[in-house]
């Protein structure tokens, strides 16, 4: 090929590597969160949930992992913000608990939805690790799980071990 050939080492006759391997590529833990549970909201639960969320939105605190429960809702906040959230909810007179020392376990697996059954497998693996998982969510390239910080570290090790076994 002439001087107009491809400009790097790829060139003719060589091969470029492409897609990442299937399955889990990395596991990490992000600590420093608190889990807030609001329960027993009673009648008109939709409006009651909104009342709680509106009160928190006024504090400028960002929420993660919001889940609707049969009698209320639960979510994650930065631990540093948990006092602010407690102060916003308390005047509403709703029953709530704040569990400190939570962490998010991030299980990275590219195009996780394309590997049918992979999400279920990871959740099964997490549950089997005996770590108590509070919440689960997913993105295009990762599964996210919330657990107590110590449990999160154990969960990370368990998933890494399973990954090593597969390899």
């Amino acid at each position, binding site marked *: 090929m002439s001087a107009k050939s491809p400009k790097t080492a790829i060139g003719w006759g060589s091969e470029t590597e492409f*897609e990442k391997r299937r399955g889990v590529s990395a596991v990490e833990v992000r600590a420093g969160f608190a889990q807030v549970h609001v329960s027993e909201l009673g009648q008109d639960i939709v409006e009651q949930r909104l009342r709680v969320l509106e009160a928190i939105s006024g504090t400028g605190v960002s929420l993660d992992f919001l889940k609707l429960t049969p009698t209320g809702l639960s979510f994650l906040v930065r631990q540093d913000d948990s006092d602010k959230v407690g102060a916003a909810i308390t005047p509403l007179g709703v029953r709530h608990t704040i569990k400190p020392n939570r962490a998010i376990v991030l299980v990275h697996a590219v195009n996780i939805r394309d590997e049918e059954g992979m999400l279920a497998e990871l959740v*099964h693996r997490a549950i089997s690790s005996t770590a108590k*998982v509070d919440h689960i969510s997913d993105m295009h390239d990762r599964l996210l799980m919330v657990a107590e910080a110590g449990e999160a570290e154990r969960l990370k090790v368990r998933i890494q071990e399973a990954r090593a076994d597969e390899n």
Partner: protein
Amino acid sequence: MRIKVMKFGGTSVATPEARLQSAMRVVSAKEQGFSPVVVVSAIGRKGAPYATDTLIQLLREIDPNVEPDPREMDLMAACGEILSSVIFAHTLKTLGHRAQAYRGGQAGIRTDGVYGNARIIGINPISLFKSIEEGCIPVVCGFQGVHVSGDGAPGGELTTLGRGGSDTTGAAIGAAMQAEAVEIFTDVDGVKTADPDYVKDAPTLRTVTYDEVAELAHLGAKVVHPRAAEIAMHHDIPLWVKNTFSDDPGTEIVRRERFPGRRVTGVSHTGKLVYLQFDLSSASEAHRTALEGRIYEMASGHAVNLYMLNLSPSGTGFAVPRPQYPIVRDLLDGLVIPMEGEVYIFQIGPASKEVEMQARLLEPLGEPIRIKAALTEGCTMVSLIGHEYMQQAGLFYGVLRTLADHQVPVLQTSDSDFSLSVLVTEADAHRAVRALHERFGLAEVV
């Protein structure tokens, strides 16, 4: 050599007129000084005579009770792109341009050995470079490659790349040939802020990051497949989505560093889902984890795709695509699990005859404990996708207030760094998408 990879989807090659328009775009690129490399999908979409689904149906209709082998399914499925590439190459020839059709393997695309969902492990594009050098326009079959097992068999095994396979082929060839750009041609102007069937006049995004487009696709939007975005991002290849049938400039997909800032990108929706919420409160504390484990073990073992996962002290829940719901029902409805002195029986929705029969058979052993799953059929997941936006205080309140004001009941929520999703009934999906699109000012996006 200024390589431009131009990938044409099913609608862009569906009719002689569409193929002519697509071919004219290739000719135009050549006249502008590019060396085009064409990638094509099969002709037409589902139901069309040579579409992939139609070809697979030819096998299935022989005897619906006998599942064809994945290897044979791949050989059959790949025929659609082979036909398409040959026809497209000949169309170019009729326009006075030499062109050569290539199967994936001939184009140097090597994959792993997973039939039906292979991943590209390498590309050696020597034959494509030679074709260009000889003055031809290579036309490559999308969606396929070849697996060389190393046992000495010549030729290797044909494999298909699974969902989004032709986009993936386009991006991968672009990376292997160090293309100046990869253009994905379709029948819409680019990546939209919402499905135009739901939001008429939804604007076209001019720029979007690989992460946003991957999340949009993950959450149901029919845009560039995340695998293609991942390859383009990794190899820093400019990726465009354009309309074959209009002169709209389309959407450029770029790295995060090239398009920073806080913004809402769009609203997507998935297909039809069935939501199951298992109530484990009747199980003994000691058995709950094991019971949850069995649910997920079964879903994993049968390749069930899960959405909207949730765990709580009283149970667990998830949504599954409607076509996979019968698998879940068959696995779990009536399933009996004995566990250290207790017998549990799963019940999905109202008690079926099978559940009642199982319960009667178990009566001599004592009353089995029912693990009931509340069943909500006909659900859809509606998602707000954003860039550096999901950490905004009050976002959940804004989304849920908007939906409540539009009388859209929310069954569950889920969120990540790039998205906030709500599960709603299918009947409410249009209203939810339109309400969020309006609330977050997406009609004004340019």
